[in-house]
């Protein structure tokens, strides 16, 4: 059996006075793509933020690579080997593509530059616009830069939040190809609304609704589970 790399156990998260997450469970196994599914506002983004320590859990536990990271500072969590691609991409608009990569690169050693070269092969656009300000990139290019930034450090796990959001189909295809490529060397947790994409590259799914995990299993099973798809995803 494959090792569990990330385990999220009954997390509850409050933002201000709102009780946003009210019992999210899920696991990501090494080498797999785990997909978080659920309607808009279900709590997928908040789940990723809670894992990153940006909106820390008030209850429950996040265990990564055998370590409890629930109460750790965000930068410690990142340094522990989790790369994060937020929903809004978090590109530093005033910094060039090169500078965005530089801020991201933690150890500027040979291995990191090798990974950078590799990721630039995946996204040749980034090389073309190397000296361009992040704020002037297209939506697709921003997405690519955000993924490249997360990948350049030797992360064991990547959290990617809705990478296809707002992109043209042809760009989505490129992004999905890149994720498939990245999967060869890292474990991935993916939030994806586009069920076609999710089912194509996901190995396992967790369904979140109203801040709670309501379903989980193998993607192959969900594809044929019309009832769950209709009830929680409004498709099928």
């Amino acid at each position, binding site marked *: 059996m494959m090792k569990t790399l990330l385990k999220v156990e009954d997390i509850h998260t409050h933002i201000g006075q709102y009780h946003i997450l009210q019992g999210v469970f899920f696991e990501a196994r090494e080498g797999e793509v785990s997909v978080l599914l659920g309607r808009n506002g279900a709590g997928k983004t908040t789940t990723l933020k809670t894992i990153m320590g940006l909106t820390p859990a008030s209850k429950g536990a996040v265990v990564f690579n055998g370590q409890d990271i629930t109460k750790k*500072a965000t*930068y410690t969590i990142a340094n522990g080997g989790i790369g*994060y691609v*937020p929903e809004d991409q*978090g590109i*530093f608009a005033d*910094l060039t593509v090169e500078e965005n990569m*530089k*801020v991201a690169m933690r150890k500027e050693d040979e291995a990191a530059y090798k990974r950078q070269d590799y990721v630039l092969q995946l996204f040749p656009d980034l090389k073309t616009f190397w000296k361009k300000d992040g704020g002037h990139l297209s939506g697709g290019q921003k997405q690519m830069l955000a993924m490249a930034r997360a990948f350049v450090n030797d992360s064991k796990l990547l959290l990617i939040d809705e990478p296809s959001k707002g992109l043209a189909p042809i760009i989505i295809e490129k992004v999905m190809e890149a994720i498939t490529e990245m999967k060869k060397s890292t474990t991935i947790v993916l939030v994806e609304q586009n069920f076609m994409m999710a089912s194509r590259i996901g190995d396992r799914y967790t369904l979140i609704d109203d801040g709670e995990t309501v379903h989980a299993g193998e993607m192959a099973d969900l594809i044929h589970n019309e009832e769950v798809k209709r009830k929680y995803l409004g498709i099928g």
Partner: protein
Amino acid sequence: MELLINLTVNGLATGMLIFLLASGLTLIFGLMSVLNFAHGGLFAWGAYSGVWFYTLSGSFVIGIIGAIITGIILGFITEKLIITPVYGNHVQQILITLGFMLVLTELLKVVWGPNQMAAKVPSYLAGSWEFGDVLIIKYRLFIIIVGFLVFGVFQYMLQKTKIGLIVRAGVMDKDMVQALGINIKRVFLYVFMAGSALAALSGVLMAPYSGVIYAEMGFEFAILAFIVVVIGGMGSFPGSLFAAILVGLAGSYMAYYVPALSLAVNMMLMAIVLIFRPQGLFTAKG
């Protein structure tokens, strides 16, 4: 003509001193969203400690270094003790930093006594150069050069070094910087210490310029610095240079041509900017 040059040099020199004070303030605000009303206290401490080191050693250079070190140490203490507990809460920041400003001012009197202290320009910077009819006061030129040098060094660091990139990235998106594995709190601390050092440098350069120093000198000057930060755009380093020169020159010309307006002119500049460009002339992102 010589009058105009004199007023300009005078305005530039004052502008540079304001810039040194405002640049720290704007970085601290831009990166940390901290309203630091104690900044003027660090300015006054820079002036006193600098003059003290200067008098003790007989060397103005040692006075400057002493002031900068004092600024760095006080900056460290201020950030750890005063600022850290109130991150994210502007009302508390205003109250506690205003309170701390008073404490810093009173402590100056405890250490150096309640009276004004005299500060002399070092002999090698005293006097002036004559170019035909134009008289350039050496010390003013010195301040202008130091101001541009500091601007150049900091601008280089912000644009070209990794820590500079991190600071700029932090001004744009703190959460993302942390999610990339950077301890933003430590970066905050460094920026705060650098800003405090600049305030102290401003203070020690101000001392011989005005000839006397007094404990309350920080209040007056800090207000000018705040005006400059608002005009230049909160968080913008080049913006604070531009706005400081503007305020310096406006003050200098007005004091001569329309003395009655010389104090109001800064407020008027600020009001005009706030009406037509509330984000300031420059933005942190541009």
